[in-house]
């Protein structure tokens, strides 16, 4: 049954890829959405059956085929559902279905064949993503990992006639390849170290080891895997591709570059929680990189003027949060945030898509404004998403983000906590900057329709709110952004944190770094009634206090945005002028792209032109090849000359062979 989950979208892909050109848009859309919804249905059934099992044995597996068997190297194509992957398949198929439905309206102006091509890619992506999360070993995961990378490339460059889109696709692909290289090395090292690629078996053999206090094999292999994660999940220093990836259609940004694919790195660490738990050095690096990325992307998001780019940097920043959670060992919190983030970030992207759709391709915040009246559905859903991501109490983002910050604080990582809090402030500010600039105030004149995405008929001047298919997706996701947090209401405020209990088996016995709250947290992770209550009461006060702080921060951030971008718009410009240097650095994204250009791209270009091509290739390789070629060709002609066709000569050759061997023995 598990096979059906990725197979259904794959069949959808095959159908649309083979017959897409010949069928109507309605049919192509129906195939794509139908296969996703069916997959969602199967996923729900699978998860339902999983939940029916006792918590300690919650896993369903299906070995599709034994793929490669070579000596003691045995890789089977096995799919496995455990609580962690159960959550992931629900997100991928559930939110995926909504985005498919949304796309039927969003992409409606494409030609029939393009429309089918779009949906075939989207289905293919879903299939690979499901393989990624369902794979029971590294190799199957890697198939999905590479597959989603391919689909991401195809979809970013979907409008391939546009040079910037084609370039962005290439950039994403190349940067991801760098990460994947680390991932492959990590995978190989894991195989060398453990003799298997199966996640469960690796976890089992790691569990018997002590955590690595010095930098050894475990640290190296987890670090290599993390390099893969930085590529896929756009963390420093491989974050540069994600903002450019916004060249793709907006639903793609929502599905691939916000809700699902980019979270694969976080998922991978969660999948190998026990392994990473035994490499504290790597975890520290993960936490620091995550925090730094969160802060950096948050500050850049503050000054971007393209609505999608703001959201892209917001995604990078939120992914940083997730890695922070992973790094401090709060795996549940990280996955919880992944879960809630999928809802509100998909919502925000789809909302921005609705705005772009309404404005016939306009993406510049400065040319928007006052859309609240004209696009009420979009406005209210977008507003909900913004509240959720900002961390306003009682919405989804509040619970998950708060959980991460609390865990960080409780883990004694004061610095990381402070930076996290600051990022939280930034998040609220840049999100509401978008809300206020786009939906409030007055529209800054008639825009000259630069139409990057939609070369729509320019006669149609009046704005239209989201069509039904888009509205449906927006409303469902808005509801999710409000409610998704309630699966993880912390005990401190009277909840039962069900998601933590649900996910706990997937993370095994997560060994934490020794610190003051170790006992308390261990007790939380392993329910033992008495200790649990005791520990909970000890930390409840702290947790409530921190909640208050982050609520205040979130509201403060919204307040700042309100002041600068609604109340006194001039103040923002004045600030930009006063801190011109800072503004320039942020607007130029800390010059990271320029650094890459100067440090990597140019040297490679020069080295390959001057050194490799003119030097090595022409002189050494061509020389050697021509030389060897000449030698080989020469000996070949010589051999040809021996072959005269004379039977006597051939017989002599046979005899000579015998004599030579004999001679060897006589001589010896």
């Amino acid at each position: 049954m598990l096979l059906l989950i990725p197979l259904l979208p794959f069949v959808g892909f095959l159908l649309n890829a083979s017959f897409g050109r010949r069928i109507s848009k309605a049919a192509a859309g129906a195939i794509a959405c139908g296969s996703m919804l069916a997959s969602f249905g199967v996923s729900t059934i699978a998860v339902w059956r999983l939940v029916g099992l006792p918590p300690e044995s919650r896993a369903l597996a299906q070995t599709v085929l034994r793929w490669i068997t070579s000596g003691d190297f045995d890789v089977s194509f096995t799919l496995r559902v455990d609580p962690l992957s159960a959550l992931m398949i629900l997100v991928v198929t559930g939110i995926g279905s909504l985005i498919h439905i949304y796309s039927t309206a969003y992409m409606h102006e494409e030609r029939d064949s393009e429309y089918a091509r779009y949906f075939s890619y989207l289905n293919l992506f879903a299939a690979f993503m499901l393989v990624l999360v369902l794979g029971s070993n590294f190799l199957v995961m890697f198939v999905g990992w590479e597959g989603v990378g391919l689909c991401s490339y195809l979809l970013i460059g979907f409008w391939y006639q546009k040079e910037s889109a084609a370039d962005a696709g290439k950039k994403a692909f190349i940067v991801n390849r760098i990460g994947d290289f680390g991932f492959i090395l990590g995978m190989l090292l894991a195989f060398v170290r453990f003799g298997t690629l199966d996640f469960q078996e690796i976890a089992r053999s790691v569990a018997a080891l002590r955590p690595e206090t010095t930098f050894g094999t475990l640290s190296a292999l987890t670090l290599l895997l993390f390099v893969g994660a930085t590529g896929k999940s756009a963390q420093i220093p491989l974050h540069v591709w994600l903002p450019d990836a916004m060249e793709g259609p907006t639903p793609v940004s929502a599905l691939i570059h916000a809700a699902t694919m980019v979270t694969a790195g976080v998922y991978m660490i969660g999948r190998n929680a026990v392994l990473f738990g035994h490499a504290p050095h790597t975890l520290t690096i993960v936490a620091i990189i995550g925090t730094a990325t969160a802060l950096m992307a948050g500050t850049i998001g503050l000054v971007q003027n393209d609505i999608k780019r703001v959201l892209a940097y917001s995604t990078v920043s939120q992914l940083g949060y997730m890695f922070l959670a992973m790094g401090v060992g709060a795996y549940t919190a990280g996955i919880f945030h992944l879960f809630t983030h999928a809802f509100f970030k998909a919502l925000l992207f789809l909302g921005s898509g609705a705005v772009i759709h309404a404005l016939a391709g306009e993406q510049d915040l400065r040319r928007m404004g006052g859309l609240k009246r004209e696009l009420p559905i979009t406005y209210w859903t977008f507003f909900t998403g913004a509240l959720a991501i900002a961390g306003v109490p009682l919405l989804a983002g509040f619970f998950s983000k708060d959980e991460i910050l609390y865990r960080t604080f409780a883990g004694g990582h004061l610095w990381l906590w402070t930076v996290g809090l600051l990022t939280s402030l930034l998040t609220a500010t840049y999100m509401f900057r978008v809300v206020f600039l786009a939906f409030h105030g007055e529209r800054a004149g008639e825009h000259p329709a630069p139409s990057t995405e939609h070369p729509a008929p320019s006669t149609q001047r009046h704005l239209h709110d989201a069509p039904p298919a888009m509205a449906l997706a927006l409303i469902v996701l808005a509801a999710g952004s409000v409610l998704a947090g309630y699966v993880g209401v912390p005990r401190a405020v009277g909840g039962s944190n069900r998601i933590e209990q649900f996910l706990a088996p997937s993370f095994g016995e997560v060994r934490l770094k020794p610190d003051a709250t170790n006992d308390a947290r261990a007790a939380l992770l392993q329910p033992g009634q008495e200790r649990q209550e005791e520990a909970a009461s000890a930390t409840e006060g702290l947790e409530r206090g921190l909640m208050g702080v982050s609520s205040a921060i979130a509201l403060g951030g919204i307040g700042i945005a309100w002041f600068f971008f609604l109340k006194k718009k001039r103040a923002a410009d004045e600030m930009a002028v006063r801190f011109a240097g800072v503004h320039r650095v942020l607007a130029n994204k800390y010059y990271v792209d320029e650094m890459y250009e100067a440090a990597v791209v140019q040297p490679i270009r020069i080295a390959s032109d001057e050194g490799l091509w003119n030097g090595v290739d022409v002189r050494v390789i061509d020389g050697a090849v021509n030389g060897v070629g000449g030698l080989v060709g020469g000996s070949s002609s010589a051999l040809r000359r021996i072959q005269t066709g004379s039977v006597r000569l051939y017989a002599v050759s046979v005899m000579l062979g015998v004599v030579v061997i004999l001679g060897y023995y006589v001589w010896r």
Partner: protein
Amino acid sequence: MPPGISTSDFYYILPELVLTGGALLVLIADVLLPRGSKALAWVTLLAIGATIASLVPFGSTHVEVAHGLLAVDQFALFFKIVFLGAAALTVLMSVRYLEIEGASPGEYYFLILCATLGMMIMAGGIDLLTIFIGLETMAVSFYILAGFIKPNQRSNEAAVKYFLLGAFSLGILLYGMSIMYGLSGTTNLRTMATAFVGQERDPRLVLAVILVVAGLGFKIAAVPFHMWAPDVYEGAPTPVTAFLSVGSKAASFAMLLRIFLEGLPSMSADWRLMFEVLAIVTMTIGNLAALTQTNIKRMLAYSSIAHAGYILIGVVAGTPRGVAAMLIYLLIYAFMQLGAFTIIIIMRRQDVVGDELKDFSGLHIRHPFAAFAMLLFMLSLGGIPPTAGFMGKFWLFGAAIDAGYVRLAVIGVLNSAISLYYYIRLVVFMYLKPQGAGSPVTTSPSLGIALAVAVIGTIFLGVYPRLLFDLAEMSARTLGVAAVTAAIR
């Protein structure tokens, strides 16, 4: 040898009996059917199919038959499947070829089946006598088949050459075998093996090993016993060349494994050294000589020599894994080699011989599928993933490294790189050169089937090789490899 054969022995040689019956049926049908009827090919295929069906009861049998003359085991079974499969493909590719050449099909199909029968006996034989009878049955059939196109001078020359040199090398082989018999007093390989324990230093035995190596080296076309191969391959009718390079080679390897692994395990230090040198020389010379060939059949002849070199690596390894790798490679080789020859036969038209490199110019415009299939076979022969050829080489070289012969693997890989040059050159002709002359390239139904089987095999075994791997490992284990491994330690 103890006299008397029981009735149960007849049960175990049922497949051979069925095939013999089928061959006779073909002769009778040739007389009864109208002249030039294509039905004869189907009768032949029916005989092959019945033989394959009769193999079914012996899926897991492991017995010695007729007082140790023949073994019915999975090793033999594996080879029998390869032979019969290759024979079936050969028949499919012969139909139109014979028509164009104007040769009478009756004796032709009969001889194909006779050769197959010989091969089956070679693979099952665990006694020098049965093996020799099998070998002769096969060889004599091939001598005739090579010269089957009577008006064609090159075909005649090929047959005579093959016959003369074959007889010569057979003499060498027999000489070696007779010394083995003289020293052990038995012709049964398994009894012989025990008799030879402790005789490793006997120079007479070493001489016997050298002579047998040389005799078999001729059969598998290993350098320097290979010189007949290019001339015969080029001159013989193309389907015969295909069958010769696949069936005869596989059978000779089966016989080689039986003789050395079952009969001479105690001499493994000597024959491993000899085969190692032969493997290196064969790979290298085969590939080097192939580089400058302009006739595709000749090029494939040298390529086939080089492949014998690769396969010898498995003998040198001598481990169950090495033997399994050989079985895997031989089956994979059958698909890609027969596929390539099918294309050459497709190229044979009334007005074009179609075996010169230039005949393939621009094939992708004349017949895109044929060009694609040929591309696939060339990539597979060169060992490029995801084709089956890659998996085969991967397995062979892996077995070599496993057995401590890293140098052989390295030389093998270097040779694969050289070989790519001439495989890809053909691709260049097909895809990048302007169209050649001659009438349109077409396929017939039977050629289409043969091509489809070869293409599917080449892709399927490259993508999902596990079934074959399991089968080959199981078959390799039934051979007395354990004894060799023990002797090597």
